[in-house]
């Protein structure tokens, strides 16, 4: 099962390597990992997307909690939550493609944020599946470069993770 785990940890140097090291040392898989400081600069917020059986996920949350720098761990998949990922895609945009790419970006509510004679750079946010769908919808030969942030997640409504 795919799980999306949020954690708050002390914004110390090496904090990221403790989490990454834990995953590799124990053979857990990481699909994506995002991290940045929160409004409180002493804390970092991390979102980890991983896969595993219930037993493995239970161990992952326990092991994360055990890290001395980790303040809080929440498995967002336990309740309703929102996920968003940002993708920047550079696509071929010459000739017929120029109009086509504009149209596709609009359909997916993307924005063209950089333009050259032959290319567009499209910014797209949404759940990972939407970003995948965009890439599938356009001609693969037109994709010049993609960069994705990995998912960031937050609980819905009153579900708040704070210390």
């Amino acid at each position, binding site marked *: 099962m795919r799980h999306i785990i949020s954690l708050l940890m*002390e914004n110390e140097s090496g904090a990221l*390597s403790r989490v990454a090291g834990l995953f590799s*040392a124990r053979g857990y898989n990481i699909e994506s990992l995002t991290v940045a400081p929160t409004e409180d600069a002493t804390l970092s917020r991390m979102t980890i997307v991983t896969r595993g059986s219930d*037993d493995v996920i239970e161990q992952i949350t326990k092991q994360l*909690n055990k890290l*001395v*720098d*980790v303040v809080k761990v929440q498995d967002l998949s336990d309740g309703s939550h929102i996920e968003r990922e940002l993708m920047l895609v550079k696509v071929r945009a010459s000739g017929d493609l120029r109009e086509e790419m504009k149209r596709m970006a609009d359909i997916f509510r993307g924005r063209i944020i950089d333009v050259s004679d032959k290319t567009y750079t499209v910014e797209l946010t949404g759940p990972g599946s939407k970003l995948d769908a965009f890439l599938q919808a356009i001609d693969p030969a037109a994709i010049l470069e993609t960069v994705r942030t990995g998912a960031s997640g937050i609980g819905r409504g009153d579900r708040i993770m704070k*210390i």
Partner: protein
Amino acid sequence: MADMELTGAEIVCSCLRDEGVKHVFGYPGGAVLNIYDEIYKQTAFEHILVRHEQAAVHAADAYARCTGQVGVAIVTSGPGATNAVTGIATAYMDSIPMVVISGQVPTAAIGQDAFQEVDTVGITRPCVKHNFLVKDVRDLASTIKKAFYIAATGRPGPVLVDVPKDITQHSCVYEYPKSVSMRSYNPTSKGHAGQIKKAAQMLLEAKRPMIYTGGGVVLGNAAPQVTELVRLLGYPATSTLMGLGGYPAPDPLFLGMLGMHGTIEANMAMQHCDVLLAVGARFDDRVIGNPKHFAKEARRIIHIDVDPSSISKRVRVDVPIVGEVAQVVDEMLKQIKASKEKPDQTALKAWWTQIELWRAQDCMKYDRESGKIKPQYVIEKLYEVTGGQAYVTSDVGQHQMWAAQYYPFDQPRRWINSGGLGTMGFGLPAAMGVQMAFPDAAVACITGEGSIQMNIQELSTCKEWKLPIKVILLNNGYLGMVRQWQEFFYEERYAESYMTSLPDFVKLAEAYGHVGIQVEKPEDVEPALRDAFGKYKDRLVFINFLTDPRENVFPMIPAGKGLSEMILV
């Protein structure tokens, strides 16, 4: 005094003093020269100079195991730190509270491939409970305070503090924090009352109960509570290698050690019980063997552990209780005493009858008539000669298992060995740590000719400190534990497990200034031991027992097999 500034090096020593540290094991080098200069000037603690950093860490580790206090080691940057890694990993695997202070190259040189630079925090990260790189002298005292706090609380473990050389020169006002509070670290100590109640109920309902204790009972100073619980209920008890002494082994309720080299009665009772209480034990692969085989029999499991990640890791449990053993078992005792229910004596009697049948197979028997020195016999004699009161450290191999099987410990913190990492070379430095903590105690290091050579240089440290350790070398001329596996599972192809060109251990001991004795006949075993603990009481005595090279450790559960699939003598 209030706002007098101290250098980082002075602060390190002041912190250790204020933490109440009495002994520090270490080895100097460039990055820690300032610290050593302050060590030279202070009198609060003694520094024991070892001959290899690995030994400093093992000694500090054993010091912690036998006293319950946090052990302390100091090493220099680069090779000092890398030499320490095996010791740190050893302590980590057995959850031993320890603080290691390592020197580091000056802050400005970090990342420059400077002389004797390694990323110590990076290298040790997977084998410490936590580690720190100090970047500002003003953080030094609070970091060391945190290190001691983290090492000793919750599930204990080693904590490393990496101190760059310039930090030891910088100065600031020194104040040792009285307490620590960390929003990210709050180990649970009190068990959940509802869960404890449920557990007490389940225990009282058991028809075929079993109590399985581990290192957590020793680490959590909970031997009295656990002993009371076992006796109150009259239930059978077993212990892991790490928990030995947590329950008095000579007691009839004790079935001996369980696991790969455990007794028939302990392993069979573990497999066939209907309610299992696991206390401070982590269902290690050397303990339950194949988890699928273990799961074949239905049983309900109660698990007390301070570390939630130890619970339901390898075996699903029914009643998890996160907390300190001592507190939880105290509470459990109250509940059981207050309960109107009593254990079902008829069922219990039938269960004990079954257990006695297993016990009657006498799985610890060995050939007493062979005319050769049997290693088991040496341990039995050691037990007799020391009245069962020695601190026994061990190396890793067959001798370790025989020590665990034939020296019935009746107190915690007397049996000092590397279980989780299984580090050959642990025994002698560990004995140094114990003897430093208890100068008047009888300390025996049980070792093999393979293991002892991994830290034999420490005989020199022992000479310097006049440590009257008794080295009990069970010399079988083989890497015996390896040879045993090769005999059983590799059709007797003894690849690289035979030790030729062994030194003359008697002369070697003498060369280091100690007493060396060679024992070649069974009848000389006891007199040699009596001399060691009598005539040469105040000397380090190194006894080279030439034991039967073909002797094996029984029972044995082959890797991947289940608890009831033991190979017997």
